[in-house]
């Protein structure tokens, strides 16, 4: 297996002169192909900054981020936008489907902006729709779909470009527990059946328990790392809670 993402000594500072906030303070880790990695931490721990830097929306202060061996911190302007289009897939908090487009068009959009051949687009949309079991709702508009259908459509859009890395930022943040579970199952399916590499950021232990490996971040540094291994999701959830308690306990001691 090859390394998809390699973060090396990454730092991100905000502010200037005397008042410097170290949002990300010297983080290094890597993600292999086909992995499903969760990044956990409380608000302000730097996890969203980390994800923004990886997704090329934000720039780093120091260090390198390599995706498929390419240093994205060195990319600029158009190159950057093209890289984002071609190598990254996104799953957003609240589906983020375009309300004026049908499911088919929402999924196809990801390919049309890459300039793919029309016939190829059509074939790929139908293929991914079959895999995600949304073939029957392709002509529906978002307001005509159920929450689960919207999630699967959004997931289909994220996977159809065959991105090297799918990034999910608090994907369940705005969902009720039932919808959240459905979305997480879909993401799990993308990972297991379609071999997608996924990096998910969350503060929620339940959400995180769907990942295969979890990095805990605190005050901009990696605090801990646990692997799911052969555990069931419930057992894994228990272990996550343990770490979270540890994180919290530490905070209490400081206070």
């Amino acid at each position, binding site marked *: 297996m090859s390394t998809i993402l390699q973060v090396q000594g990454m730092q991100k500072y905000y502010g200037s002169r005397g008042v410097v906030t170290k949002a990300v303070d010297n983080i290094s880790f890597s993600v292999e192909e086909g992995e499903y990695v969760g990044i956990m931490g409380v608000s302000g721990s730097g996890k969203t900054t980390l994800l923004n830097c990886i997704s090329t929306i934000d720039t780093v202060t120091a260090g390198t981020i390599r995706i498929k061996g390419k240093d994205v911190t060195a990319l600029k302007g158009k190159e950057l936008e093209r890289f984002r289009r071609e190598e990254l897939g996104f799953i957003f908090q609240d589906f983020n489907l375009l309300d*004026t487009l049908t499911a088919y068009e929402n999924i196809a959009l990801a390919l*049309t902006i890459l300039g793919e051949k*029309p016939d190829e687009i059509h074939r790929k949309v139908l293929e991914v729709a079959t895999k995600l079991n949304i073939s029957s709702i392709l002509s529906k508009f978002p307001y005509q779909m159920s929450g689960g259908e919207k999630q699967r459509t959004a997931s289909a859009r994220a996977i159809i470009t065959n991105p090297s890395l799918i990034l999910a930022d608090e994907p369940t943040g705005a969902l009720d527990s039932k919808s959240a579970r459905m979305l997480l199952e879909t993401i799990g399916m993308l990972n297991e059946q379609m071999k997608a590499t996924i990096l998910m950021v969350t503060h929620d232990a339940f959400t995180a328990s769907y990942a295969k490996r979890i990095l805990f971040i605190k005050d901009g540094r990696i605090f801990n790392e646990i692997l799911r291994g052969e555990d069931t999701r419930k057992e894994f959830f228990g272990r996550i809670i343990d770490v979270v308690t540890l994180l919290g306990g530490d905070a209490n001691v400081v206070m």
Partner: protein
Amino acid sequence: MAGSSMLSRCSGVMQMSLCKLSFQNVRKSIKDYTVYFLTLMLGVCLFYLFNALDSQALVQGMSEIQQDIVQMMVEMMAVISVFISVVLGCLILYANRYLVKRRKKEFGIYMLLGMPKRKISGVLALETSFIGLFSLAVGLALGVFLSQGLSIVVSQLFKIQYSEFQVVFSPQALVKTILYFAVIFLVVMVFNVRTISKCKLIDLIQAERKNEQVKTRRLWVCVILFLLSLGVLGTAYAMIIKNGLQTLDGSFTLSIVLGIVGTILFFMSLSGFLLRVVKSNRKLYLKNLNMFVLRQINSKVNTAFLSISIVCVLLFFAITITSTAIGFNSAMNADVEQSTPYSATFGYTQSERVDGDMRQELIDAGIDMDAIFEATEQYSYRETGVTLGGLMGNLCPQKSEDHIVNGISVERYNALMRLQGKPEISLADGEYAVISLFAYLNDGLDEILQNGRTVEIGGQELRPGKQQILNTALETAMGTNNTVVLILPQTLAESLPVADSFLCGQYRAGDTDAFDDMLAAEPFVSPANGASIGVTLANEIYWTQTGTRVAFLFVLLYIGVVFMIVAAAALALQQLSEASDNVGRYALLSKLGVDRKMINRSIFSQVAIYFLIPMALAIVHSCVGIYVVLQMLNAFGEPNSFLHILTAGGIILAIYLVYFFATYAGCKSTVRQQRTA
């Protein structure tokens, strides 16, 4: 006591903060709603401009005839202005609705913070007054500035010499403009207050989230509606072309109504129809953001077809009115030169009197002919017994068949030409020549001259002696007395009975205005034989026609330009407000990796399509409209109006393009601002 003073202080603070809040909101709005302000200002400016025609500085240098004409124009403008103010009022209400809609969330927050509805209405009313005062002030300033330019145009049209530069300013127009717009803003204010008081807090807070539900019509419904609309439009075109503008009766109204219905049906079905067509072509459909642009338009056109139809009809009127105003102007200009070959033409006012020594009779009536006129000539029309139908046969237009064709002797004709300083003709016995002032007869007359058609007059067979039609008017007259006149050999002409007589004269050099005044007291009655003689003066015709022409031109330009502005502004406002609705969609596209260039291109296509579609149909409508108007103008003479129509079209398109690019820039910056925020 202390409590009440506290309360009043409190409310004082509240008043101040309300004022401050409204002022800040307006300052914010100025940046956001350039198009709104632009339109208000232009409206005020035009309103002032066209109502300030009677400004003192201008009227001073005018003769009495000219002043009368200006007075007539001012009265016409007053009537038109009422209509214009209603149109502008509607536009302002429409624009205002968007302003309020866009800020619903802001009002919701005020309400949530506990501000009573009454206060919010107050803020809005204050804002409206700020906006009103601001646009009124700037618009009036612009109007006063531009009226300097317009006054130069008017003075040139009326040939007034400016002795010195004077600032042209009309207090009446100023008061009128302020009054009319005050009423409009008052209506807007009432409307705003009502909107707010009817609003529910939940709707205001969730205003952003409420999306129009995308209604899609079935394909066959779209196709049938589309074909139906084409049919209705075709019928309307055919009716108006067939009937023309000669009679403004039921069929004219019907064709206008059909045109409007057809237009609405067209836009109702167009987007659905277009979507299906493009969708069936996968290469076009699945390319870049085409799909997105198409859906954007489709989602709105379904609900916005009515406003697009209105814009289309307005554009049609704007183009047709402006083009024909300029075309008409040139047509009538040619006419006035033609119909005033002499300073004055005298004729009998009693229909039974057809002949006599008119010069002597006028001298008897106390007119000093020698002092006034350099030279005079009297001539008579002779009864030929021929009608236009008899002369032209089947080449004669049906409506003109019964027109009587009079004759004139070649000797008299040449005498008149000498008086006019124009070339004489020679005509042998047994020959005739044709004078025609009506362009629409020329093709037919040309043909009979080429064919050598003979005509029998006074028992004598005549053949054409000249191949060309002559087109010189024989008298100074309002309009043309005779459609077609035959020039006959002298002996033949003198043997025919006299139909009517005229005396034509050219003034001596000198104070022609004084001569006009000396001849003003018509009719002149000869004490010797009781003959009553009337006079038509060249200056009178000239100024009446120039006045009518200028008044006509101004009224039409006024209406045309206002319609244009209304249409363009309505489109622009709609697009701008839509751009802010679309901010979220563009933000998402950007997250998906769509670059700025592609997003800009998509915005451009959307705005362009919105501006193009109504314009395209309006141009088709206008082609028919202008064609029909040209047909009518042809009866007046031969206007070489094509160039003028192109000029007018160019002006209209220029205004439209300015609005288009302003809108595109506005939409782009709205999307960009929100994206970086």
